[in-house]
């Protein structure tokens, strides 16, 4: 910390012209970035903008394709995660990065255990556990450092990870969307610690896709969009409107199409749906040609409810009626048979097989229909995928292109194509536009609109409140596994939804 005075003002980290490609995606395109001591530099951008990729390049999780990185003014080649760690950079990744089988203290000290005898690498275990419990206290975490990490809740695990970054003297701390899984009290604890360390000259890179947090915490903000740096601004000079505009690359509000009116007939009805402790008695009905939006905070039980309806993780109790007939849906196979399609939130890992062709991906749910006597009708399959490629304007050279090479929006359209082939009555979307750019988004909405017009019903689970409000006939807000509020289309602001999602009493 002594050298700090001499370096104040000089940037801690400079990244220049960073380029990183993944199959089918240019995740970072000539991105410049700079972090000063004692600042909280917010890296803002929509899902899929490349924020996590940028910091993973800095951390050495994977190498950049090109570009230069300077740490404390010195050019470094980051060939492994060791390099930035040794220089006092700490990373809290978006995904949980703990070893589940070992205890809290060992996780906190992973790779930096206090040594008794340095040369032999012998660890001073009593210091290890003592320091760990001190650190936990500082965060108001009432946890025994001997507890095995796998027994902790997601929030607790996140707190342990944050504690991990603070265990040794760090000069740069990178937090990738840390508050996504935190409750508001632990959020405040975190912000307190950040503000404290800031004064000591520690630089923070704080990644978020929520502009609300920017004003609360940030000094400067760099906005990424589609892998490009759109600009770096001082928070004071930036209005909310321009920030959002820069983030999504267009004016707000114009992207949602009009929705055709739903019909009277009820297609799907849930009664008293329970799934473990995360879905706590949900009832609703969905009409023909209706789009019902369900929103809420992360962890409110949206995904669990979606998966329960789709038979992926069947409900613990409750009934499901399709056109007034009670049905059992315990596997995706049965769901498909009853005309329910489910588009998961994890397009890349659960929706598609990235290293297979468009056609084979199309075949996934349709293969049964296309193979009488177990023999695949290849010609028919080709015709159908060609049809949908044209119909949904999937941009790909041909049907043998690998799914992994498509952009996010086109991948989502491919997932849609695959389910349209099954001629479902109800399509369940979980986070339909996550990681999709604005053009792709509009097209997904247009397809939804057409589906509704044809009489298909849609259940849309989303954490994007604007999308929930503007794209559904009705919005229901979920909190702690229950439906707590319902709004008709465009009748509420994002703030109203947020209040309902958090629970108004607890808000502030």
């Amino acid at each position, binding site marked *: 910390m002594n050298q700090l005075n001499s370096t104040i003002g000089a940037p801690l980290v400079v990244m220049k012209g960073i380029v990183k490609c993944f199959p089918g995606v240019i995740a970072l395109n000539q991105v410049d970035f700079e972090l000063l001591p004692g600042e909280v530099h917010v890296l803002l951008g929509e899902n899929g903008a490349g924020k996590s990729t940028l910091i993973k390049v800095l951390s050495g999780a994977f190498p950049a394709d*090109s570009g230069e990185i300077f740490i404390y003014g010195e050019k470094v080649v980051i060939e492994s995660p060791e390099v930035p760690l040794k220089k006092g950079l700490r990373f809290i990744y978006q995904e949980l990065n703990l070893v589940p089988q070992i205890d809290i203290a060992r996780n906190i000290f992973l790779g930096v255990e206090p040594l008794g005898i340095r040369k032999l690498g012998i660890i001073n275990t009593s210091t290890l556990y003592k320091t760990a419990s001190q650190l936990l206290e500082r965060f108001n975490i009432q946890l025994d450092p001997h507890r095995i990490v796998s027994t902790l809740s997601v929030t607790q695990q996140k707190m342990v990870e944050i504690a991990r970054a603070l265990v040794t003297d760090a000069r740069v701390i990178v937090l990738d969307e840390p508050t996504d899984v935190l409750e508001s009290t632990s959020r405040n604890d975190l912000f307190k610690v950040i503000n404290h360390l800031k004064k000591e000259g520690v630089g923070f890179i704080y990644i978020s896709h929520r502009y609300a947090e920017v004003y609360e915490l940030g000094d400067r903000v760099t906005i990424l969009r589609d892998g490009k740096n759109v600009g770096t601004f001082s928070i004071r000079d930036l209005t909310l409107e321009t920030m959002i505009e820069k983030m999504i690359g267009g004016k707000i509000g114009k992207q949602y199409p009009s929705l055709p009116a739903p019909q009277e007939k009820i297609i799907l009805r849930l009664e008293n749906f329970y799934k473990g402790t995360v879905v706590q008695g949900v009832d609703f009905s969905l009409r023909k040609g209706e789009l019902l939006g369900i929103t809420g905070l992360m962890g409110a039980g949206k995904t669990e409810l979606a998966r329960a309806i789709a038979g992926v993780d069947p409900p613990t109790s409750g009934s499901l009626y399709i056109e007034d007939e009670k049905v059992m849906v315990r596997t995706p196979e049965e769901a498909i048979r009853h005309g329910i399609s489910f588009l*998961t939130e994890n397009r890349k*890992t*659960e929706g598609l097989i*990235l290293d297979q062709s468009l056609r084979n991906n199309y075949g996934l749910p349709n293969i049964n229909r296309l193979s009488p006597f177990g023999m*695949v009708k290849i010609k028919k399959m080709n015709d159908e995928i060609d049809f949908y490629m044209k119909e949904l304007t999937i941009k790909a050279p041909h049907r043998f292109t690998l799914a992994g090479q498509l*952009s996010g929006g086109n991948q989502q359209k491919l997932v849609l194509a695959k389910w349209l082939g099954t001629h479902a009555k109800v399509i369940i979307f979980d986070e339909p536009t996550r990681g999709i750019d604005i053009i792709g988004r509009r097209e997904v909405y247009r397809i939804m609109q057409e589906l509704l017009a044809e009489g298909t019903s849609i259940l849309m689970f989303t954490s994007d409140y604007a999308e929930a409000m503007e794209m559904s006939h009705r919005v229901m807000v979920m909190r702690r596994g229950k439906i707590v509020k319902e709004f008709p289309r465009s009748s509420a602001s994002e703030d109203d939804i947020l209040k309902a999602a958090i629970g108004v009493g607890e808000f502030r």
Partner: protein
Amino acid sequence: MQTNPNVKPPGVGSGTLVKNNKYQLIFRSQWFLLLLAEFLIAIITGIVNPRFFTISNVINVLEQIAVLGIVSSGMTLLIISGEIDISVGANIGLSSCVMAIMIKSGIGVFPSFVTGIALAIFSSFLVGLTAHTFKAPSFITSLAFISVFQGIALAITKGSFQTIYGQAETIGMTRLGNVLPLSFVISLGAYLVVHFILAYTKFGRRIYSVGSNPAAAYLSGISVIKTKYYAFLFSGFFVGIGSMVLLSRIGAAQPSTGSGIELKAIGAVVIGGTPLSGGKGRIIGTLLGVLLMGIISNALNMMRVNPYYQQVTFGLLIIASLAMSIFSSYKGHARSEKSTKKAIE
């Protein structure tokens, strides 16, 4: 993120599409390289020992690789489906011992073979069943079953050779038109069946799907478990056929019959371009892999290499060629594959 994959980002040499074609090229050329290696080994051996190219030796090679080819065909299905079975050698040992004992005791050749094949199918199924019910990787359960199969075989044979010379030679000894070994024709049949399954049937498409992304397959209404069970059943069937051919050719069986073939079979499949992680692969690659094994083995014999050195060379070759194939074609995919896998877990 770029919507149009053809647009090159500044500072990047090639677009992603170009990259893909390059991979496909390497993938194809891996088979080409295999063939080339086979020719080279053949030519060198031929120069050292001209007898290598005699008809009788070529027939000999074809006969030698027949059983390996049959077993490898089944293994190809299994590995593409994301599973593995390293007990196939022990399985051959057990089923061929059972066949031999039955034939010896006067039960006809045909019912004996059928029983043996059924047993092989059952054994293979057990490996899959335990792997699934105990949520353990199949390489572990199959490892455990090696002891079980070998132990049972030892118990029923009391460790002794079961000879049936002259009683069931038709399959192993017949040469069509006095040249082409029937056993080799059977192995060709196995390749063809597997090719047909993989290319034209629903089951085949499902095998690829569950092998490369079980989560996506399951969510698309494919029963992952059932598909994998079928893969084990098929593999077991081919193991049974392999045992039958082997027994018929050798005319004797003992518990250690077939031991070590698992490594050769896995090696042949992977050298042929099917990654151990599953989801990809073609039977033509396996065929070339099996051929390579056969040629190397024969070449070593021809060059009069001490059999123990042969064993050493074989082990080395398998590791080396697997390493090569991983270097050449999977290195680039490894990261995305890994991260996808992690996300599934």
